[in-house]
């Protein structure tokens, strides 16, 4: 009984405490670089699209707001034919970024993407792609992968020996 009164009293004392509300539009909060806001697609240091259309982001997405289709250029480099994020459904959980094996998909500290029409929240690849490597400068998936693409032959990737001559039987 007493505890109830004490509780009421303590709550009443809050009348004299400072408010913690941030008055948002006038007063902008600090957002950490790793804040999970608007999603972007980044590029390799050499300017190529980082996304290799592996579909991991789409399958990791708990709300299924990512859709893409893989395709390949004539040199074997895989990239998304289309890449679509429905931000009207995105919950900004960051699982896509976590799943991405090439650091292509990244969440940014920008959340001010409100729209009056939901359809305006559907972002295509052109809307998502930025001109830089984002949070991971220097990383280039294709320089680590074993497949051959234009400008990188077999054996030219990092930690790769020259291709084996299969016609030799020398030990």
């Amino acid at each position, binding site marked *: 009984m007493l505890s109830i009164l004490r509780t*009421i009293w303590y*709550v*009443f004392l809050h009348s004299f405490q400072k408010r913690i509300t941030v008055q948002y539009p006038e007063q902008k909060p600090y957002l950490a670089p790793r804040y999970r806001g608007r999603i972007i697609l980044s590029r390799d240091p050499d300017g190529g699209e980082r996304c290799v259309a592996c579909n991991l982001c789409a399958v990791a997405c708990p709300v299924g707001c990512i859709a893409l289709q893989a395709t390949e250029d004539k040199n074997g480099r895989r990239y998304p034919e289309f890449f679509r994020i429905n931000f009207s459904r995105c919950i900004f959980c960051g699982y896509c970024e976590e799943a991405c094996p090439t650091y292509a998909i990244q969440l940014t500290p920008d959340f001010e993407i409100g729209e009056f029409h939901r359809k305006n929240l559907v972002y295509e690849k052109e809307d998502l792609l930025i001109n830089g490597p984002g949070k991971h400068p220097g990383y280039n998936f294709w320089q680590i992968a074993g497949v051959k693409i234009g400008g990188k032959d077999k054996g030219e990737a990092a930690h790769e020996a020259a291709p084996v001559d299969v016609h030799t039987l020398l030990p």
Partner: protein
Amino acid sequence: MTSPHPILSILGVAIVALSIAAFLIWVERRLLALWQDRYGPNRVGPFGLLQVAADSIKIFMKEDWIPPFVDRPVFILAPAIVFVTVLMSFAVLPVAPGIIVSDLSVGLLFFLAMSSLGVYSVVLAGWSSNNKYALLGGLRAAAQMLSYEVFMGLSLMGVVLLAGTFSLPAIVEAQRTIWFVIPQFPGFVLFLIAGLAETRRIPFDLPEAESELVAGYHSEYSGMKFGMFFVGEYMGVSLISAMISVLFFGGWLGPVLPGVVWFFLKMFSFIAFFVLVRAALPRPRFDQLMSWGWKVMLPLALINLLATGAAVLAWR
């Protein structure tokens, strides 16, 4: 003693009661925010005061959806009942000398009767919704309100004994010497608790416990029908606060300031207290609620009545 202009008084009381209820939407949110270290609605108009208007427009514009599976006439009737019974209670409420719709000689009994009738609204809403959560909410409301009504009435009998009348203006006048809260302190506490329960306010909001029952008896309601439950609750809060000030704190009596001001001052203090309780206390379990009602509150009310009766007898 009845008001010289009955229509005017009725309209006046109805409008004031409704305005206060609407205003309370804003007051409660601001006060809750205050006690939770926030601001609450502060964007619409000065101090967010026009939030009331915005909310009203919204609730009037909302689709008034009647689900196909409900018992239609009862479903429509239920929110009207809560509205009507609470408004009726205001008829016997003395705001200041002469400012009353109808000074019934059994005003207090009329108030109790009306608040008992209010149960129907909740029970019928729960029943007619044809939804398990609504039904559970309705059942809880029935049990809770019936149980708490018993000692609500008994807790007021001390006041009646002291004042010797059921007429509310007379009860106020009887407090010229001393507010009944002093001799009737246990009665005041009991009435306060019963009042909270009657208005289904936290911590006694079990009939609509949203964490268990979605929205309880009004799960299926939307638009203005939901709005009527909502406004009905706030009017209930105002009514109980007003009744506390009338029955225990001398109503309009007070020095310097006019009676009306004193009345509203006291009433708003209790409304604020109601909000404070909401900000502070959690909801009990239903079995706890019932056992307090019957095993603690009712005996206390009876003892209070017995003691008061004995004292009055001995005094005379």
